[in-house]
């Protein structure tokens, strides 16, 4: 989920403010609603969002009360509050409510790279690399919880598609390196280097040129 810094700030304030009123499930639904319907609006109106949240609670909390609380929370942010972004992303993944257009360019490039690599590696080798990735991703302390879950889901399908919005390039690089290590273990580092290089060359000459800079930072 690509949010502007201002939107991220508001998201944090809203989350912690609503946490007091709403049970966990309703809170997460409210946050998904905020991300999908209100976060990207130029003129964000707390009132319209409060109406939606009130409807979500079945009228238990009035829009007026919710509006006043949220306005106050946004105007007076608390410095040491935790960022709920990962929590929300994990919930979104869990319920499968994903908006395809919200994938970042890095993630798209990552998916394209991995799929081409697996295609060139071929059935048995690709399968071995996927198995390695499943284990290593879960064990890695460098990847976030949401990313680990997302990778497990992505690796289950023939066409790997990581369904997460904003993932740091450093994390994607770690996963690509895990794939490289798996290739090295199976076919040796000389062939692993050759496969990566062929993947890059094929992509750059066949529809992947737009992601060229991202590929180089992933590799």
């Amino acid at each position, binding site marked *: 989920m690509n949010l502007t810094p201002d939107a991220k700030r508001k998201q944090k304030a809203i989350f912690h403010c609503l946490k007091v009123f709403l049970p966990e499930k309703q809170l997460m639904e409210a946050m998904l609603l905020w991300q999908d319907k209100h976060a990207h609006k130029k003129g964000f109106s707390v009132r319209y969002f409060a109406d939606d949240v009130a409807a979500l609670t079945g009228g238990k909390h009035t829009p007026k009360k919710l509006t006043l609380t949220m306005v106050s929370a946004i105007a007076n942010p608390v410095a040491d509050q935790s960022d709920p972004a990962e929590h929300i992303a994990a919930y979104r993944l869990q319920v499968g409510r994903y908006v395809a257009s919200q994938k970042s360019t890095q993630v798209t490039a990552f998916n394209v790279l991995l799929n081409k690599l697996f295609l060139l590696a071929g059935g048995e080798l690709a399968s071995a690399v996927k198995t390695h990735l499943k284990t290593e991703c879960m064990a890695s302390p460098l990847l976030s919880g949401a990313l680990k879950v997302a990778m497990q889901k992505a690796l289950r399908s023939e066409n790997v598609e990581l369904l997460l919005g904003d993932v740091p390039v450093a994390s994607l*690089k*770690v996963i690509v*390196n895990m794939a*490289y*290590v798996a*290739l*090295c*273990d*199976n*076919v*040796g*580092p*000389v*062939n*692993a*280097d*050759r496969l*990566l*290089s062929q993947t*890059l060359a094929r992509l750059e000459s066949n529809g992947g040129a737009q992601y060229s*800079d991202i*590929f*180089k*930072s992933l*590799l």
Partner: protein
Amino acid sequence: MHYRAYRILGCVLALLSLPVSAEDVAITKEAIDVIWLATAAAFVFLMQMGFAFLESGSSRSKNCVNVMMKNFMDVCLGSIIFWALGFGLMFGVNSTGWVGTSGFFMHSANSWDYSFLLFQMMFAATAATIASGAMAERAKFTSYLLLAVIITGIIYPLFGSWAWGSFYEGAGWLAAMGFTDFAGSSVVHSVGGWAALAAIMVLGPRTGRFGAKGKVHEIPGHNVNFVVLGGFILWFGWFGFNGGSTVGADVSIGLINLNTQLAAAAGGCGAVFLAYFLGKPLLVVNIVNGVLAGLVGVTAGCATMEPLFAVITGFSAALVYGGFAALLLKMRIDDVVGAVAVHGAAGAWGTLCAGLFMSGDLFNISTVLTQLTGIIVCFVWAFGVTYFAAWVIHQTIGLRVSTQHEQRGLDFTEHAEVAYPEFLQDTYYSKQNLSQIQRD
């Protein structure tokens, strides 16, 4: 024309008939000794070039700058450390037989002392650089340099003080036992080889070198020509390495360098023989290593054996190299250039041969046992201390680079440059994009 020649001849004869004092002879001898020692030191220094070529050629192109840098820097650091500390520990006044206690930061010394320090400094740099090849392609640059400083400053000089001892006063305890290692099969090469073994055991193999179910993945070097050139340069340098160990102009240099040449040639033949005997391909890298094994092997006894035994030593050293290299592979120990087998194992074997084939005292069991004692002490000391040092470095600042860096190549990640930007194969960098890519 003839009249002029006779006039010159007459002058020369007149000069030759002039009386010359003993002091003049001594001064001339000292000058010749210093000149020979300084020249031999230059020969040994050239071996650094040989190592650089050999190790770089044995590595993949994405790591070859890193290899060259390690060779360059370990001679820079090693020279200073050896001048400051190592020389004193090795050759200083040695009253206990265990360690020298004078000659640190040498200054205000005489010409011969300076030339001797220079010569021994090159030996010390050689010992350190042996480990660099074995550790190539996955060692952190700064951590390697730290290990090289420890090898040059402490590990090598202390064993050297036992085996060679003081040139000023006192003798090393091994030397006092009768241990013979004329030019350093054990002192230089085995110390370097066993240090390399310890370091690569702590480091672990390169990623993907050994696959599942015991499969060995070959990782060929990027330039076989470099390996051959390096081998030739090392061979050339060895004439100074062995010949210079007389530490003066001496008629024995003839036999020493003849034995050096014969052993090298026999080592090459030994490698060829082994390949044919085992039905394996004749790889030029193995032939070069066979030659080097022959050179390492004869280094201990080149001054004290007859030429026939130099041939036997060289030939057999190549067989020892082949066997040990195979053993390391079986144990899943990854040595990029075969340094452990060439320098460690062949060095130990050569030290034993020096005892077996001692001129005028062939196959003396007592001599052989003394040699064996020295070989074992060398292994225990060099391997043990290096293993500990490498382990401490590994636990603190880290000895090994990340797999991310191995994937990208150490040239780029450690040094921000690549060796062949115009001719990149299987890498992702060009001259245009080098500065734009994040190295971490």
